[in-house]
């Protein structure tokens, strides 16, 4: 309890906790869950965008998309690295993803159906992600905070690219405008869900905020996201699919319709449109790749043995 008080005092003083420092088990566990989930999201997040790499409409767009998924895999690497400082290996985390013990962001259980979805994912999904992540650059756990700094820089670049795709389509042909609107229609509510359930239904939040693992409440961030995104949609000439959306002068933000939380819970339970495909794809990659990983390790071992023998 004394240790605990000292720990909390450090956090309150804005100090960073480092891997070798003492920390409460709950802090460690919560961080592992949160960082792991975030890492998994980067990995699974390759799939909906990877779905369009082979169908990108131009060489330039193909290159940009390739660069983006490469960044995402890189984010996965940083984050698994940060999680490893907490004493859990990448392989352990991966197996928890693959057998369903750990989650990834529900948004990636929605399909990407047209090229406009590449825009919507960048604009809305990366936009929501950034909204979540920017405050985490100041989170209490050092390795996590530093990973976030690198990630946020790239994410905001991705978000601009996504918005650019949308702009290109919004000022394009009629079919393109229709495609862009359709993408917004499908991704709007799932994006709002990315901030998690309403504060009144959100568990764990208080403790996480005290530990500065979570910096804002779900509803705060969601409001901020809506307030930022609605004018962008207007700028694009697209209609947010919410008839009750309205500026509320008093609160200085938009009133908006909450997402359908029963859908959110269905997706969490595995009933999203793509849960099965996503997990199957990752399991297949892992299983099919086993011989490669084993071959690499066997070769490395031979090399080391040869080196030792030579010395």
């Amino acid at each position: 309890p004394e240790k605990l008080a000292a720990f909390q005092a450090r956090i309150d003083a804005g100090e960073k906790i480092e891997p070798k420092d003492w920390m409460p088990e709950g802090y460690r566990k919560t961080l592992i869950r949160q960082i792991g989930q975030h890492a998994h999201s980067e990995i699974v997040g390759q799939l909906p965008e990877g779905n369009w790499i082979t169908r990108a409409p131009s060489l330039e767009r193909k290159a940009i998309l390739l660069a983006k998924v490469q960044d995402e895999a890189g984010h996965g690497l940083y984050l698994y690295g940060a999680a490893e400082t907490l004493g859990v290996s990448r392989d352990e985390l991966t197996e928890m993803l693959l057998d369903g013990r750990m989650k990834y962001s529900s948004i990636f259980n929605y399909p990407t159906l047209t090229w406009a979805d590449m825009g919507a994912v960048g604009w809305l999904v990366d936009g929501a992600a950034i909204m979540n992540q920017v405050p985490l650059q100041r989170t209490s756990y050092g390795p996590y905070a530093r990973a976030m700094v690198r990630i946020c820089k790239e994410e905001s670049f991705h978000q601009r690219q996504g918005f650019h795709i949308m702009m290109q389509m919004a000022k394009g042909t009629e079919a393109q405008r229709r495609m862009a609107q359709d993408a917004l229609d499908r991704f709007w509510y799932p994006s709002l869900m990315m901030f998690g359930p309403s504060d009144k239904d959100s568990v764990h939040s208080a403790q996480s905020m005290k530990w500065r693992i979570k910096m804002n409440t779900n509803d705060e961030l969601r409001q901020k996201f809506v307030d930022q995104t609605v004018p962008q949609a207007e700028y694009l000439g697209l209609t947010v699919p919410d008839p009750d959306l309205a500026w509320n002068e008093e609160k200085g933000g938009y009133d908006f319709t909450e997402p359908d939380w029963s859908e959110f819970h269905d997706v969490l339970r595995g009933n999203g449109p793509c849960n099965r495909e996503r997990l199957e794809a990752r399991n297949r990659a892992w299983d099919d790749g086993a011989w490669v990983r084993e071959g690499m390790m066997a070769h490395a071992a031979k090399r080391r043995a040869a080196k030792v023998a030579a010395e």
Partner: protein
Amino acid sequence: MSALFEFLCRQGDSTLILGQRLGEWCGHAPALEEDIALANVALDLIGQTQMWLGLATEVEGAVRDADDLAMRRDVWDFRNLLLVEQPNGDFGQTTMRQWLFDQFHVLQLERLCDSADDRVAAIAAKAVKEVRYHLERSSGTVIALGDGTEESHGRMQAALDRLWPYAGEMFESDAIDAELAEAGIAPEPADLRAPWDVAVDATLAEATLTRPESDFTQTGGRSGKRHSEHLGHLLAQMQWLPRAYPDARW
């Protein structure tokens, strides 16, 4: 159709089709590092495609652009090697295909750096740096998996045996090559065979893999005379969107 245009299409089509194949791996690689590497190589190859096909359209007189070449030609007009249009197969097959090509690609680009055509030389100078890294990585992987476990060895040998008949096409020389060699623009592909053989044999030895005996060669990609059935399916996917919306800009 000038010989130079034809040559540039051969260059750009091979990098395009190989880049497209690598793009299919996204999110499905055996390890995160491989996901990153595959995307990275694909990205380089698409970048090189933009340069080669861009120059091709310039040479042609700027009636169309690189995207038109990539997205609006049918199978018969593609000039990529048969090797690069082969399906990904398992990771061993993808790696083997990459290595056989990278080893050729480096040798070719090194020679192209001295091209009499400055524009060709400039592209080669930029590309060769990237491709040296591709080769380093692919040959390293061939060695590691060839000399890894029994299973990985078996898979790499199977991949080599399967892809070997497509290697010879890289060294085929025809009238177009002769014309470019004459003009000092590009080396005769046949001249690259000997250094390729030396390099390949060295890597195979390290990888404990056996070079196939038959040198029977499948041809028809580079000349465009007869691609494999795989290319059409690849193009259907790659080109559908721009063909579906011919008036759109993206």
